[in-house]
C-alpha cells in the first residue's frame, strides 16, 4: 500500500498565517473513511527530524485507518461489511475482528438505551459509527509504540491528543468547537491532554442543513427532527466521546442527562434554536 499523505492545497491563503505566537506545529493529512485525517506534531528544535518522525507516524496512522476502512466500509462493495449487508455471509462467518467490533457496538447500544445503534433504520448493520473512534484509538496505540509522545490526531472533527503542543511546558492542546450556526467560527474552546482528565473531544451533528437525523432506539426507529443541532463530548478516550456525542444528538435531553450522570464527561450541546446546554467544564 502506498502512503498518500500529501499536503492538501490551502483553501484559505488569508488564514494560513494563523497562530503567529502559538506553538509551532507540523502536520500531515490523508483521505480515509470519507473524510480527512490530520496528524500534528510539535515542530520542535530540529525541523528536519520532526518531518521524518511525522512522515513515519502519519504512515503508521494511515495504515490503521486504511485497514479498518477496507473491512468496515459500506462504500466498498468488496468489504466484509458489504458482503454481510448483501447477505452473502452471516455474522457467524464474519472474521473475529469484525465480530469484536459488532460486540463493542451492541454493548454501547445497551449502555445508551438504544440511542447509539449499529443498525441503520433499514436493518443493515453499519459499524461506521464506532469504527472511526476505534481507528483513532488504534492509531494512538501505534503512535505510542513508535515512541511518539506529543501529538494531536483529528479525524473529520473527532480529536484525540497526547502530551502537549509545546513539550516540556505542560500546556494542553487547545481544541476549538465549530459553531454549527456559522461553520467558519468557533463556538468554544476546550483544553485536552497535558495533565488534564480529558484527551478526547468528539462532536456529532445533524446533517449539514441541520434538519433531520435518524432518531433511533430500541423499538423506536423513526425519522424526526432532532432536539440538538450539535453535541460535543470530552472524555478520557475517543470511543466514549464519539459514541456519546452520537447518542446525545439522537436521544436529546434524556440521553444528555444519562451521559453526564453515568460517565466522566463534559458536554456542550447546541439546541435547534442555537441555545447552549453545557456541563461546568465548558464554562469559562
Amino acid at each position: 500500500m502506498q502512503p498518500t499523505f500529501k499536503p492538501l492545497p490551502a483553501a484559505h491563503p488569508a488564514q494560513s498565517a494563523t497562530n503567529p505566537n502559538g506553538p509551532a506545529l507540523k502536520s500531515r493529512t490523508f483521505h480515509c473513511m470519507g473524510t480527512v485525517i490530520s496528524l500534528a506534531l510539535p515542530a520542535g528544535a530540529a525541523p528536519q527530524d520532526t518531518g521524518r518522525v511525522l512522515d513515519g507516524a502519519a504512515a503508521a496512522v494511515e495504515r490503521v485507518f486504511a485497514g479498518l476502512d477496507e473491512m468496515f466500509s459500506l462504500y466498498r462493495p468488496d468489504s466484509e461489511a458489504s458482503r454481510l449487508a448483501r447477505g452473502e455471509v452471516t455474522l457467524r462467518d464474519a472474521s473475529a475482528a469484525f465480530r469484536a467490533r459488532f460486540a463493542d457496538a451492541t454493548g454501547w447500544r445497551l449502555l445508551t438505551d438504544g440511542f447509539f445503534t449499529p443498525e441503520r433504520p433499514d436493518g443493515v448493520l453499519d459499524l461506521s459509527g464506532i469504527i472511526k473512534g476505534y481507528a483513532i484509538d488504534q492509531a494512538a496505540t501505534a503512535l505510542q509504540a513508535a515512541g511518539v509522545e506529543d501529538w494531536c490526531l483529528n479525524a473529520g472533527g473527532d480529536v484525540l491528543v497526547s502530551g502537549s503542543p509545546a513539550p516540556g511546558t505542560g500546556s494542553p492542546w487547545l481544541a476549538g468547537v465549530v459553531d454549527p450556526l456559522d461553520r467558519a467560527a468557533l463556538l468554544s474552546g476546550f483544553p485536552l491532554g497535558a495533565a488534564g482528565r480529558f484527551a478526547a473531544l468528539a462532536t456529532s451533528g445533524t446533517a449539514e442543513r441541520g434538519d433531520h437525523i435518524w432518531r433511533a432506539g430500541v423499538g423506536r426507529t423513526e425519522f424526526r427532527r432532532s432536539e440538538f443541532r450539535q453535541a460535543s463530548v470530552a472524555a478520557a478516550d475517543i470511543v466514549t466521546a464519539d459514541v456519546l456525542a452520537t447518542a446525545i444528538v439522537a436521544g436529546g435531553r434524556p440521553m444528555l442527562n444519562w451521559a453526564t450522570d453515568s460517565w466522566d464527561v463534559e458536554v456542550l450541546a447546541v439546541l435547534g434554536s442555537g441555545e447552549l446546554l453545557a456541563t461546568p467544564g465548558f464554562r469559562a
Partner: protein
Amino acid sequence: MRIRAAVSAALASAGILLAGWQSGAHVADTGSAAAAASTATSSGASGISGGAPGSSGGSPGAATTATGTFAGSAVQTRFGTVQVQITVNAGAITDVTALQLTDDDRKSVQISNRAAPLLRDEVIKAQSAQVQTISGATVTSDAYLSSLQGALDAANL
C-alpha cells in the same frame, strides 16, 4: 423602635438556636435519627414554629402527620457516598441536611455534572488563531478544504 426590634430579633434567634440545640441533643441521645427522634423533636419543633400546629386548627389530627428528623439510607453514587437527613414538621419538610456528602475524590463537591443552559458569552472562548485543532460534525473530504481544520493544517505544512 429600632433597638427594640433588634433586641427581640436577637431573643428570637437565641430561642431558635436553643430549640435546635435541644432537638439536636435528642437526636444524638437516641443514636438513631429516625422514628425515635420523632417524639423528641416535636417539642422542639413546636418551640421553633411558635405553636404553628395549634394555629392550624389545633385538631388532634395534627399528631398523625409526621414530625421529626429522618435519615435516608446511604447511597453509593459516581461521586461517592451520599446520605441526607430531612427535618419534617407537621408533614412538611422544613430542612434538608447532608450527613455524608464527601469522598476522597475531589469530585465529591461536584454532585451534579448535568448540563445547564449557558449563554454564548459564558463558555470557554477560543479564537481560531489560538487553537491547535478543530472539533466539529464530521466534514466530508470536499468540505474539508474550506473548513477551519483545513486552514489550520495548511498553516502547519
